[in-house]
């Protein structure tokens, strides 16, 4: 099976989707001739032509507004926002229009738009190239929100997102583009080619939206995470020698609550981990839901680990990032907690 890094997997997903379905079009800043600043769309314009891979002006609101119109007219647009930090100028078109079109027209209109955007820190991007804004999308009903943690899932989820008739916010943890990352920037980088999830089928397949994946089953505690933090959390559990059940959400909304509840009922302990700032973050939804559903099974409070409630500072990237130490501390706490 071919080895792909996460960028190549995204590229392959776009290639496969565009080959199978002539209505799939790609648009965004620098995605055409250049192939994208992260090379996710490399070669697509050459292969599918300038009319299906469009370089756009730097106007995120215009990109999504136009993509909605294209979607209404029978195309399946995949829009790239160059960094998740720059999605906010499009927030109105996404929230007020894209998410609500099917609802407000009682199903008469819809726009199957997929919005891809690199998110997360760990590349010295400072406060405007590091954000993880999933929380401001999961709260918007009508949107689906996806974040893969590896090349295999990335390709399968992206194809599923493109083929889905609902709008999907597809967040790509850019720190994982080249290899898995366990949270230690001083360790030598590992490429995806050394990782089983770097094995990616060349052709068409989907990873269904709306399903969480048990990365590793275990009985001591449940660790719920997504994106980069899946690797950090797995490593932290390994480091502590804990038999953790690690769950990768894959799709954040709609949420696969059943899988989470089953796991927490089994283990009785739970840590939720994300890279975004914690206050008002998606971890709140997860912890709130699980304490309600699993209250009588819980042996310790559910603990959330997230980025500090500050912008992502350039110089203190690794003190900001919720690395193995912080995740491990939380795991230790839920294991030890007693009245």
């Amino acid at each position: 099976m071919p080895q792909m890094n996460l960028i190549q997997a995204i590229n392959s997903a776009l290639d496969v989707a565009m080959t199978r379905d002539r209505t799939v079009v790609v648009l965004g800043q620098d995605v055409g001739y250049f192939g994208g600043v992260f090379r996710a769309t490399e070669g697509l314009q050459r292969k599918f032509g300038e009319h299906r891979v469009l370089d756009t002006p730097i106007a995120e609101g215009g990109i999504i507004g136009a993509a909605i119109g294209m979607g209404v007219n029978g195309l399946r647009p995949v829009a790239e926002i160059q960094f998740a930090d720059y999605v906010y100028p499009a927030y109105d078109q996404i929230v007020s229009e894209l998410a609500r079109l099917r609802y407000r027209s009682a199903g008469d209109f819809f726009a199957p738009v997929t919005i891809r955007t690199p998110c997360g820190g760990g590349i010295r991007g400072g406060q405007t190239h590091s954000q993880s804004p999933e929380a401001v999308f999961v709260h918007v009903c009508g949107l689906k929100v996806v974040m893969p943690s590896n090349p295999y899932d990335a390709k399968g989820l992206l194809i599923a997102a493109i083929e889905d008739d609902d709008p999907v916010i597809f967040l790509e943890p850019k720190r994982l583009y080249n290899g898995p990352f366990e949270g230690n920037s001083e360790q030598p980088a590992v490429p995806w080619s050394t990782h089983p999830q770097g094995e990616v089928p060349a052709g068409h397949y989907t990873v269904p939206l709306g399903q969480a994946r048990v990365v590793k089953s275990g009985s001591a505690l449940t660790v719920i995470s997504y994106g980069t933090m899946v690797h950090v959390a797995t490593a932290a559990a390994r480091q502590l020698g804990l038999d953790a059940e690690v769950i990768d959400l894959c799709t954040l909304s709609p949420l696969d609550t059943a899988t989470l509840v089953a796991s927490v009922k089994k283990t009785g302990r739970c840590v939720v981990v994300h890279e975004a700032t914690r206050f008002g973050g998606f971890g709140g939804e997860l912890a709130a839901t699980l304490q309600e559903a699993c209250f009588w099974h819980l042996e310790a409070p559910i603990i959330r680990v997230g980025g500090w409630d500050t912008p992502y500072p350039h110089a203190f990237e690794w003190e900001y990032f919720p690395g193995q130490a912080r995740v491990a501390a939380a795991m230790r706490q839920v294991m030890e907690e007693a009245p």
Partner: protein
Amino acid sequence: MLSPSRLHIPRAPARPGEAPDFSYLQLSAAGAVPRPEITVNASEVTGLATQLVRVLDNTHQAVGAWHPHLDPAELQIGLRHMLLTRLFDERMQKTQRQGRISFYVKCTGEEAVSVAAAMALEPHDMLFPAYRNQGLQMVRGQPLVALMNQLLSNTGDMCKGRQLPVMYHSSAARLFSISGNLATQFPQAVGWAMAAAIKGEEHIAASWIGEGSSAAADFHHALLFASTYRAPVILNVVNNQWAISTFQGCAAGDSPSFAARGPGYGIPGLRVDGNDFLAVYAVTRWAAERARKGHGATLIELVTYRASAHSTSDDPARYRPRDEAERWPLGDPIERLKAHLCVLGEWSEPRHTALLEELEAQVTVAWKEACIFGTLSEGPRLDPALMFDDVYQHLPPHLAEQREQLRAARAAQGKG
């Protein structure tokens, strides 16, 4: 802050208690504005952005290069659509006053803007309306009962009770779903037109926003994307002089006109008498041909006047002179087309009266039929559980659960 402010504040020409003043309006004589080829470049026709295309002169004759030479039968149809729009508006306003619907928006005085434009377009062209374009619905043959059902949020409501009144839609009639968020449809229309071009189709898109809404970012995005990809789209700005209480000068600033925003993007901007059915028709037709033949977008400013309140929640007497509407220099679009038809010998007072009666009866019949589907306070009601549909294409588990909770709660209350 010791020094007095040096900020410039745009001022409405007249407020309540003052005499209406339309001296700021630049008018052209009917027939005075040239009609360029559709292949023209924006920079060659910048004059069209400040002149005013008019076809009907003071004697109600059609004159000049923009005269569209429509069949009288066509004009009669236009008159019928405009009259129906007005009667419908009046009746619906009344039903709101009676508490039968929650909200309404009239387009009184602006009927030509929508009716003439829709008639100048092809059935397959896609329309992206604002909330004050009911004439588009009329021309595209939307049944009055269907519109009324939407206004009533009743069991026949095309929106399944989800939208405020007037937020119609019909994919079959190629009328896009109306949004409560101003101007968002403008770049969407451009995207639709881009898709039509990508698919190699000849269909074009047209959209309408108010002059106040032209301040929104979406206006800029629409012009920019239309320019970059020469999208086959018509972008209409309906300048009815008011945005709720705010005078058009607030959104215009020092701009020579709203049409004048076009040439800066390389898009021709045309200013047209929005109360002149023939002029609106002609200009729309020109822009449609231009778009269809691959020469790109056109920005059209339709100069008109919002003769009624902003909506049923508004009282314009608080912010503009009571008699301002009467002093509007471009008259009433229905009266003007009627007079033109009379001058042509193709219309008469008796025919007009008969038509009015016919249309009123039509509205009355439709209202009765609509009420059978329920009103705010009486008759059948949609199942509230419908509120969970169409959030997504397929109902996800959490919404299925919430729907069950609602059903159970209502059952416990002896409802539903």
